[in-house]
């Protein structure tokens, strides 16, 4: 298929970017979106132009690195997939595809489609862990009984890959689905109870400090999340913070 691409080009974080139009031809419908971008970049390199910078790593939908806003949606029009797992069969010959970086004041553009998502790492560092004695006397985690329901819910929350699609798609640039998932995956398990109050207080404080917006429960994040993280995690985080504060 032949496509017209409108891509955000920005030299670095200090200059203003703009949309630039490119044409790509003979794109197979079996290609992933990133492979289509590779074809474009080969074309640009061969012509002596600067290739389009974009984040990618595993290309298997599990690392959370790819991050494009395609035709007005985070990770494009397909559901439950990251950009690397989005296939060109979702588009039609002759389409014009708009490709932008994830937008949020807390996710500044580094170059072209690459944004700085280290705010998520700082939120994780503020409390997204459990402290375990690893001196050799560590208790076997499987020795603590956990109900199937709690284990499943914790696992569902833990499938968040921290890609930032929730922030990118939120009209308020809120990070509450990400933080809610990270708070929940520990809050649901006995191992997470000891530090539960400090965890939620510190992670929410860091989230606010990073400049993310306030959730207004539109539910867009849940729809666009490639891992299907539920809004229930935000409600749980709210409960956890209330419990920790009163």
């Amino acid at each position, binding site marked *: 298929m032949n496509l017209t691409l*409108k891509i*955000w080009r920005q030299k670095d974080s200090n200059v203003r970017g703009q*949309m630039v139009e490119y044409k790509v031809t003979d794109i197979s419908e079996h290609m992933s979106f990133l492979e289509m971008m590779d074809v474009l970049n080969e074309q640009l390199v061969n012509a002596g132009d600067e290739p389009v910078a974009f984040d990618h790593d595993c290309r298997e939908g599990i690392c959370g690195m790819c991050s494009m*806003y395609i*035709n*007005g*949606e985070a990770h494009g*029009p397909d559901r439950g997939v990251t950009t690397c797992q989005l296939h060109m069969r979702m588009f039609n010959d002759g389409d014009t595809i*708009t490709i*932008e970086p994830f*937008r*949020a*004041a*807390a*996710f*500044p*553009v580094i170059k072209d489609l690459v944004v700085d998502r280290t705010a998520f790492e700082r939120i994780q560092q503020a409390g997204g862990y459990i402290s375990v004695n690893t001196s050799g006397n560590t208790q076997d985690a499987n020795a603590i009984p956990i109900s199937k329901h709690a284990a499943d819910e914790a696992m569902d929350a833990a499938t968040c890959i921290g890609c930032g699609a929730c922030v990118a*798609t939120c*009209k*308020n*640039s*809120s990070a*509450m689905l990400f933080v809610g998932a990270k708070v929940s995956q520990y809050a649901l398990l006995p191992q997470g109870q000891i530090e539960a109050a400090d965890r939620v207080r510190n992670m*929410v*404080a860091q*989230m*606010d400090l990073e*400049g*993310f*917006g*306030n*959730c*207004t*429960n*539109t*539910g*867009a994040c849940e*729809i*666009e999340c490639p891992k299907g993280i*539920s*809004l*229930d995690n*935000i*409600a*749980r*985080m*709210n*409960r956890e*913070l*209330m419990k920790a*504060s*009163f």
Partner: protein
Amino acid sequence: MSGFFKSSIGRKVAMALSAFFLMFFLIIHLAVNITSLFSENLFNELSHFMGTNPLVQLVLQPVLIFGVVFHFVMGFILELKNKKAQGVAYARNNGAANSTWMSRNMIYSGLVILAFLVVHFADFWVHEINVKYINVQPEDPSRYYHELVEKFLPMWRVTAYVVAFILLGLHLAHGFTSAFQSMGSTAGRKATLQKLGKVYSIVIPLGFIVIALFHHFNH
């Protein structure tokens, strides 16, 4: 505790608490007004009680005014903070793909409701304050029904009320379940709350619309 209400989640909870209070008030308001459809006397009695009872006038009324002002001011503060968090706008954004119009435009439905409240306060509340405290009129417990009917005679006012109540319905269609979600409502209650929210957001505005239309076309 003060730290909690300074956090993003604390502000959401404060918004939800004021919303619960206002939603409860709407039920009371509709329950009183709906009596005007079938009993002039009952409506006058209830209105007279509301207008003269010291608990309602000196405690509940100031709390209500505070609740309304708080909900609007906090709504504007959150909107400004959220705008600041957004950064550069998307060249193409398909909001309809993942969220309802109501949920994305609470500030606009809220602004219409605010404009309506200005008219509503000028219509009823300012008049009440005037006859009770400024140009004091002799007490007349039967005046309320006629004042209500008189207000709904002009078509422009009925139209404005209907439009405002449709927007109120859209505001509530998202706001009802959103308030429970902000308060940390559990997953098991989601389906029930969504159904309740639908019923509430239709019944309340429709009730007020019926009252306005009834008095316009029957007098």
